[in-house]
């Protein structure tokens, strides 16, 4: 094989791999996207979203009810509400009045069945989607989330 043919071979192989990679990646991406919705988005849409989504907002005050492993709470952006039920262990920083993101799906009755409740590392940290959602509804109180001012 000449130098030129070898180079062409590798070029062809490279392009082929690029195509295969793009195909696999885009197919997988299409199948595995999870959309984020606020309680207001849900309330305004005519039908409940099917499949897996993320919802976020604040955990409504005095809405947490726990029995055994079952937890139920209300997520709100202070305009609309979503009832969430979750089977399992809530993260350490889960608290009423604090931001939360839950991943799961709606059942036929319109209740949201979460299979993951997003844990946070940092008390000052507000999931960005939640912050944006709260800004949109005008509830957000500035950037005091950064703690001590510089």
């Amino acid at each position: 094989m000449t130098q030129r043919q070898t180079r062409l071979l590798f070029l062809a192989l490279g392009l082929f791999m690029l195509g295969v990679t793009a195909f696999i990646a885009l197919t997988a991406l299409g199948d595995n996207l999870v959309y984020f919705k606020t309680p207001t988005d849900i309330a305004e849409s005519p039908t409940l979203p099917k499949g897996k989504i993320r919802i976020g907002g604040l955990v409504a005050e005095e809405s947490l009810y726990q029995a055994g492993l079952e937890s139920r709470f209300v997520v709100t952006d202070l305009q609309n509400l979503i009832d969430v039920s979750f089977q399992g262990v809530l993260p350490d920083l889960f608290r009423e009045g604090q931001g939360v993101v839950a991943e799961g799906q709606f059942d036929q009755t319109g209740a949201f069945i979460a299979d993951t409740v997003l844990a946070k590392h940092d008390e000052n940290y507000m999931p960005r989607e939640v912050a944006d959602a709260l800004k949109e509804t005008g509830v957000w109180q500035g950037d005091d989330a950064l703690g001590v001012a510089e």
Partner: protein
Amino acid sequence: MITESGHFAMILAFCVALLQSTLPLYGAQRERQAFIDMAVPAAKLQFILLLWAFAVLTVKFVQSDFSLWLVTANSHADKPFIYRLTGVWGNHEGSMLLWILMLAAYGAGIAQFGKSMPAALKARVLGVQGIIGVLFLAFSLFTSNPFSRLISPPFEGSGLNPILQDPALAVHPPLLYAGYVGFSLAFSFSVAALMSGKISPDWAKWVRPWTLLAWLSLTLGIAVGSFWAYYELGWGGFWFWDPVENASFMPWLAGTALLHSALVTARRNTLHSWTMLLAILTFALCIAGTFLVRSGVLTSVHAFATDPTRGVFILMVLGVLVGGALLLFAMRAAGLSSADKNVPFHPVSREGALILNNVFLASATATVFLGTIYPLVIDAFGLGKISVGAPYYNAVFVPLITPLLLLMPIGPLSNWGRSDVSPVIKKLAAAGVLAILGGLTVLVMTSEHQGGAALGVGLSMWLMLGALVDLSKKIRFDTTPLAQLPKKLIKLPLQQWGSILAHGGLGVMILGIIGTTAWRSEVVQAVTPGAEMDISGYAVTFEGETSVAGENYTAEQGVFSIKRGGQKIAELKPEKRFYTVERQSTTEAAILKNLAGHLYIVIADETVSDGVVSRVVRIWYHPLVAFIWIGGLIMALGGVAALTRREAQLISDKTN
């Protein structure tokens, strides 16, 4: 006073970096020896100044000097000594100073140890390091100054995030940064070669040791971070395909490709342009990683409180450095004169295998990049908020990585230049048959005939056995008498262990990954004292709970006795801690560790049902999970072994 001296040292370092980034580059271009000679002392001086600044900040943290804003915000006098120390880099400003210190340390390292390099090349490399230094020092001084003072200092600080008060997390950032920043040298070497317009055959030999050092630090950093997440976050997961994790994984993938392509460049004096491009892109991914983590554009389980203006600044740095380097690459790469352009190239050869390695690793990097960046792009165009989770990565990673893993044992056994297929097949036949049998055994024996697990076990055995075949070839196992073997084994030069350990270590890691993902079992139950739970052959009894107090926290501690075959073998005490200063609670898992698997227990909240108070308990059994980190450690050891290869040996190797 002493605080101001640290701040002042940082400003001086900035000035020195300004000189280092201009005069030596000018000197190298115009062949002015006096300016070229400035590079080495400037690099060393910059390092010493930053070392002083870092030392000052460390002393302030240890002394709990609350007149510093940073100490107040991130420390507390009651904190154990070790965490007052590591608190220096447990926050944004301090960790950026560490980042810059390491950058200067690598520069000083080149200045000190790069004795065999031509002075002009060295001046250019240090000049480019200087440019990176200027940009990041400006970032630190103008957007995140660690030495900001408070006018009226409080009596007490607000503490350090409790989950960061952990030995693994104390070493995680320095290791990770040593990796990130280490790739800056590969970047500088590329840009220096492009500036000079010519590339010496020795170029790759100077780049490779530094790339190896960066790679092994990053490998250790990621492994330690994963181990920390496993035991500290209380979910028993080791990898979440979280954007922040991807931010460290992308440079690792690209850096691994760089190591292999630099090998081809060093040994065969070809593939220069690709190696240079890869070096630029690897460091670009390191800066992008810093941007993703520090800017707050991501929703991550590991997110930190952040400030968007910093993100904009890092994005600008990324644009200047990488944009400039890529522009230079586009203009110069094709015309780069290298000593030997027409190296005969045969596809069936060691370099052929290494190029395939690069094709697969580059594809894998691109898919991770796509998954990480896609939600940001969609959001930026106002098309909605989405997230890309583990299912995406599992779907793309398995088909891309499987062929790479199949190739891995073949590469080191084939010859440079031109290789025959049949002797390689002969050497690996036994390993291949055993690996297939191993996979088939898993397929038949497991209850649900898990195809994925069978594939994983087969690949893991293929890699481990392939590493053994590599070793047996290197000690000439088939022609050496048995009595001579131990001697041969000891006498095998350390550098020869590099690929054996790195490739075999990955096999060990895959075994661990398959063990815990395919065969993990879990029990979640609300229990009262006396309750017994069975999991994977262990009988776990909840004995009750007590309250305990630590140095800076109080905790509720569950007591569990573990029986196996009727015998009590251990007592586990997971805790739910409450850190009084930070007013945060954390979950401390208790883990019964052995090689066969980990028994992992956490306790959660109390719960009331029908008037009975019970404790929610979560127990996992993670089979083989320890092999994930043992494998990572073996891989890093492979990096250490390869590092012992001296430049001179690489050159003389080429002739045989």
